[in-house]
Each structure stands twice: as C-alpha cells, then as structure tokens.
C-alpha cells in the first residue's frame, strides 16, 4: 500500500482549491500543481472541502461491558465514517474506567481497531459514585496518558469533591469535564421542563438544574485556578453563565451536541423514546442561544455525546427507555445544516470547533493541527453539496437510535485520513485496520 497520497483540488477550510501531498503520515506539501512519485495514490477532490480530522471530546464506545450496545470496533468505524480521526471514550463502562488498567484496556482496543485514535476519559470518582476520587494520577501516568476526567452520566454534585478534583488534576494539566445536573432537581426527570412537559405529563428536567451547577463550577474553577470543561451544555442560561465566566477570565470551556443545535422538545409529543436524551432536548430559544454561543466562541466545541443503545432500550414506553442518541455519523452534516448553511460559522470555524479546540482541551497531540506542511496527515474530505437521507440501519454504529433518521441532511464525508492512511475512501470504510 502506498504511503503517498496526492489530493488534487481540495478546498482547505472551504478556501481556494489546492493540492495536498500526504507522505509518511504527514502533510508533505500544500500548494497548486503538486506532483507525486510513481505509484502514489492520486485523489480527485474537486469540489470537496478539506478539514483537519475531527476530534470528538465526548463519545460512548460502551466497551468494556456493554458490547450489546457498541464496541470499540463498531464505534470507531462510525467515527471514521463521520470524519473523525480521534475520539475521547467516556468512562461509564462496566467496569467503570476509573483505574489505570481499564483506561489502558480501552486504549489498546482502540489501537487494535485502528480506525481513529481512541483517547480514554477517566472517571473522576470511584465507580462514578460521587463519593471518593478515583486514582486520577495513576490514570494520567498510565500508558493511556489520561488528561480528561469525567463522571459523565452523573454529575459530580458534591461541591467539596468537585473542588478537590479540579485542584488535583492541575498537577498533570488535566481537565474535569462536568456533566452539569443537579441531582435533586432532576429526580425521575424525563424531558425538558416547560410547556410541552406540562401537556405530556412527563416529569420535567428544568434548565436551572444545569445552570446552577455550571454557575457553581465556574466559580469553583475560578477560585482554585483550574480548568473546567462543561459537557453538553443545552440551555440559553448556561450560555450566558459561560459567557460571563469567560469574560471574567475563568478557565472554562464548553461543548454542545449536534442534537441540541437542531432539535427541540416539540419532538417528544409523540412519546417516541428516540428523542429521549440527557440533558433533554430544549426549546427553540435554547437552540438559538447555543447556536449563537457556538458562533461567538462562548461554546468552544461540538461534541457528539454519541450514546448507542440496543434496540430494546428504545422499543418501549418513554419512561422505561434509556437516554441517549447516536451522533458520530451525522455530526458534521448537522453542523453544516445548523451552522454553516445558516451563515453562523465558516468552514475554518467548523475546523476550530470540531477539531482544533477539542484537541487542545483534551491535550491531544497530532490532531486539530493546521492543514499545512509538517502537520500529521489527519484530515477529512467532505462534499458540502451532497445531500443524503439519514438511515440508522445503514450506519456503522451498532446503535439504531438516531434522532435524525429520515431527515435530509447536507454534506457527505468522502474520505478520512489517519496519519496519511485512508480509513474512509469513497464514503466507505477501507477496512484496513492497524497502521
């Protein structure tokens, strides 16, 4: 297999067409009229936008323990097809990724699959129970070199524990990614609390339960001078709080999911659990606020919160259903639809929100770098003019719980390169594993 690829006529960050020469895992040259040696792969990329390979700061790969929902293999195939070259795998596995052993196992599974770089997230507390700090230092020092810690799925609600976690990870430049959800305010919560929940008789998940925790945490982060990352921010009030904190100089970053950029709680009216997610789908005003926050940089990152579930977890009544949505294979299209085609972001900003910023927050080397000579050849080619209908059955993820099913979305990932090797070509997995 050739180690040299010449991409002709791609538009880096949506700019003027140019050629990119990938050699030995790096970008060797960028410019007009490049040529490659005999035997190099030559790819006609006319009309395609080139972006640095996407980085997902929030993915649930489910392995170990919930292989009925997803495996590292199936989840990272989905990631590559979605244009990702690296994903951060959340810690709520069975066993929980709260020891060096588990994070190293996840890391090895990712390497064996070979579709993207898998970066394990370590749990903040033992067993995600919110009682005692997990061995954060051991995970940081392990072969997995963990820098992002999260109890995602659960909030580190104890203020003292959260303070200690924020302080402790400073020793190795870690970051606490908080799932902001005040537990008492959300006991048994089923959907966004508002006019729709009032009609449907489903217990409400009020915005304030997210905002109150974010407000507390930015003040804590300020007090101890630590890095805080806010997972899946979903409300207009949360955007305001993060905007205020950033203006004050607090070291806070935030992410929003594709589904919170596009969907609202009106979809719950049919009680179809495919729309059940945590935090819940909010209102149109919230959608507009998170879009604005992403556009002005208040929100740093789009992260999928890709959460595959087996069929039976959604094929039931609303209250019994699991929370979560798949997202890896639709994220870029949803962002194009919600942010680019609406004029809120250009492609350079998409590259920042979906690649450079998450790589920076996660302290991930080799990803999210500019498309220039010397950078690792991690990139994605997408056809922004393509349109496609979302069909969960045709996806690589084992989860069929896509809330975008049946929607016509713009933008199709044509090719993904991980250190110069095509993991996806012609919009299909190349099937070549392990570099």
């Amino acid at each position, binding site marked *: 297999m050739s180690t040299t690829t010449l991409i002709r006529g791609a538009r880096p960050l949506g700019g003027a067409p140019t050629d990119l020469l990938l050699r030995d895992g790096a970008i060797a040259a960028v410019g007009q009229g490049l040529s490659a040696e005999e035997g190099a792969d030559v790819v006609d990329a006319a009309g395609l936008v080139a972006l640095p390979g996407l980085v997902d700061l929030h993915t649930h790969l489910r392995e170990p323990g919930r292989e009925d929902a997803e495996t590292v293999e199936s989840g990272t195939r989905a990631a590559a097809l979605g244009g990702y070259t690296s994903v951060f795998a959340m810690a709520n596995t069975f066993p929980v990724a709260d020891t060096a052993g588990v994070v190293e196992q996840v890391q090895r599974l990712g390497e064996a699959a070979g579709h993207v770089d898998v970066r394990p997230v370590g749990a903040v507390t033992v067993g995600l129970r919110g009682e005692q700090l997990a061995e954060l230092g051991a995970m940081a020092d392990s072969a997995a070199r963990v820098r992002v810690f999260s109890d995602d799925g659960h909030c580190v609600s104890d203020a003292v524990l959260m303070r200690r976690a924020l302080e402790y990870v400073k020793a190795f430049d870690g970051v606490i990614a908080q799932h902001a959800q005040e537990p008492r305010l959300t006991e048994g919560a089923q959907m966004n609390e508002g006019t729709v929940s009032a009609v449907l008789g489903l217990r409400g998940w009020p915005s304030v339960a997210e905002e109150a925790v974010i407000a507390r945490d930015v003040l804590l982060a300020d007090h101890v001078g630590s890095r805080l990352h806010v997972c899946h921010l979903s409300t207009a009030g949360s955007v305001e709080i993060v905007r205020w904190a950033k203006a004050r100089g607090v070291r806070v970053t935030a992410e929003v999911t594709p589904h919170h950029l596009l969907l609202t709680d009106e979809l719950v009216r049919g009680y179809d659990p495919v729309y059940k997610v945590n935090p819940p789908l909010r209102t149109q005003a919230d959608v507009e606020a998170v879009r604005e926050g992403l556009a002005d940089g208040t929100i740093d990152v789009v992260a999928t919160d890709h959460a595959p579930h087996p069929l039976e977890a959604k*094929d*039931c009544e609303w209250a019994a259903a699991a929370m979560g949505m798949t997202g890896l294979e639709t994220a870029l299209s949803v962002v194009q639809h919600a942010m680019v085609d609406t004029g809120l972001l250009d492609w350079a900003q998409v590259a920042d929100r979906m690649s450079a910023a998450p790589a920076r927050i996660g302290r991930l080397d080799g990803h999210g770098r500019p498309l220039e000579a010397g950078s690792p050849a991690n990139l994605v080619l997408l056809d922004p003019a393509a349109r496609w209908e979302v069909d969960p059955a045709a996806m690589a993820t084992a989860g069929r719980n896509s809330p975008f099913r049946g929607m016509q979305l713009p933008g199709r990932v044509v090719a993904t390169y991980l250190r110069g090797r095509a993991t996806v070509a012609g919009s299909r997995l190349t099937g070549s594993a392990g570099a």
Partner: protein
Amino acid sequence: MRHLLSAADLDAAAAVRVLDVAEEMAATQRREIKKLPTLRGRTVVNLFFEDSTRTRTSFEAAAKRLSADVINFSAKGSSVSKGESLKDTALTLEAMGADAVVVRHGASGAPHRLAHAGWTRGAVVNAGDGTHEHPTQALLDAYTMRKHLRGGTGDLAGVRVVVVGDVLHSRVARSNVLLLHTLGAHVTLVAPPTLLPVGVQAWPCAVSHHLDAALADVAPDAVMMLRVQAERMDAAQGGFFPSAREYSRRYGLGRERLAALGERTIVMHPGPMNRGLEISADAADSARSTIVEQVGNGVAVRMAVLYLLLAGELPGGHA
C-alpha cells in the same frame, strides 16, 4: 378516528357526539334487558398495568353490555423491564385478535406507544396513563355536568368550572381542561404553586392559588376536587406542601366553603377520595355531590366510546 388517547383528540362535534351516544346508551340501561348486541363477536381487552378496580370494572361492564367478548389482562408492572412487557404483551394481545385495547399504565404516553409503535392493530383507548391523561374520565365528568347544568344536550358553552388540587400529578385535570375547553366551558385551576406544572400558563384555562377568592370570583357551576396523596408532603416525595392540615385548610372543600357555594353548584370528585384531606365528608355526601353518579355515568360514556371507535363512527380528531 381510530384511537382515544387524549381529550385533545376530540373536536367539539366529536365530543358532543360521544355525549349524545352516551345518553342513548344510558337510556338502554334503564330497560329490563340491558344488553345490546352491537359488538357481538368483537374482542375488547382490558390491559391494566396499574390496579384500578373502579375503571376496569366500568370498562368491563360497558363492553359486556355491548355483547363484546372481554379479556381482562392484569399485567401489574414489575419494577424491571416494563418496556419489554408492554411490547410483548401488546404482541400477545394482537395474536389473540383484540379489536380494542383499553390500557391503564403508570407511564405517561404508554397508550401512544401502543397505538403508534406498530405493536397492535386494535383501537387503543387510554384508561389513564401516568400523569398525562384520562380522557374517558373527562368525558364522564362532562356528561355529568351536561346532565345537571344543560339538561343533557348540546355543549357546555359558558359553564364555569373550578378544578382544585394536585394538578401537577393529575391525568384527570389535564383531560378535563382540554375537553371542557373544547366544549366551551371556562375552567379555573386552583392549587398551591408547587402542585401546578411549569408551563401551565399555556393551558386554555385560568389559574389561581386562592380557593376562597376563586370560588367567590368565578361563582362556579361545578367544583371538581382532585385527589391529593398525603405522602406528597414528604421531602422524599417532593415536599409539595407542609402538612395535610395546612393543605386541607387552604385547598380542601370543607363545611364552610361548601355552604358558601351557589345554590345550584355541583360538587365533583373523580375518586378515590381522601375524605378529610381534599374533601370533607359533608361535601362528599351532600345533596350537591355528583360523586356516586359520576361512577354510574362512566359505564354509559365508555359504552359510547367503545361503540363509536369499533363501529368506526367517531368523527373528527387527530388520533
């Protein structure tokens, strides 16, 4: 209209049609031979995931008096994998050839899933789902009001109704607000702010926190007291009010409030009552109480619903 899932499924014409047919059904129930041959050979399944002897027997009587075959399926939900059991139970009933499924379930929206997830082809009647709706209760309440206040014909235009109590957790309140609005009545909800859902402002009704003021201002034709579970004052249950005594004083229908009601005002309660909490024995047993009558009217209304759904003659609506 194939299903009755929400009171909002009924437009004014459809709602009046149900009430009119219920009048006809009630008339047949005064005959010596109560049984009608209308649904002979059809199968009605009562699928009850929650205990409710009152509602189940009412539906059972309704179906039997229409000569339908009735299967009572008591599937009181175990705490685990309720979802699987809902789907699998539905598939089982489908295999038995259920023409109508009357479902009571603790989860809001379960009847919606039953009707629309492709698990059964039968007509689905919501007999109470979680804290969502209980449309046949609203129909029998409307029937009762129409009987007393409008001579048993037409709609409820201009009728003033005060609904008091735990609106937040009440499927009866949701269905009543929707149906009474459709029929032209004016509804005022009275509850402590903790027992009203966020978003109630968008409902087609007025809202008050003061029972005495509401009764004086509205001069209602009907006062409907909702059941309040005393445990709701516990912190673990949400701590919605300080004590049963305080609730009773502020929102209960006791002797004094009863005496202050207008001469023709009727007192309603969907049952089961907590005597001494939301309603005193004086009020429950007074001459203006329609509480026992409501139960009887339930059979006629449910006969009408089953007949219209299975005969395919229920106009209007969206389900």
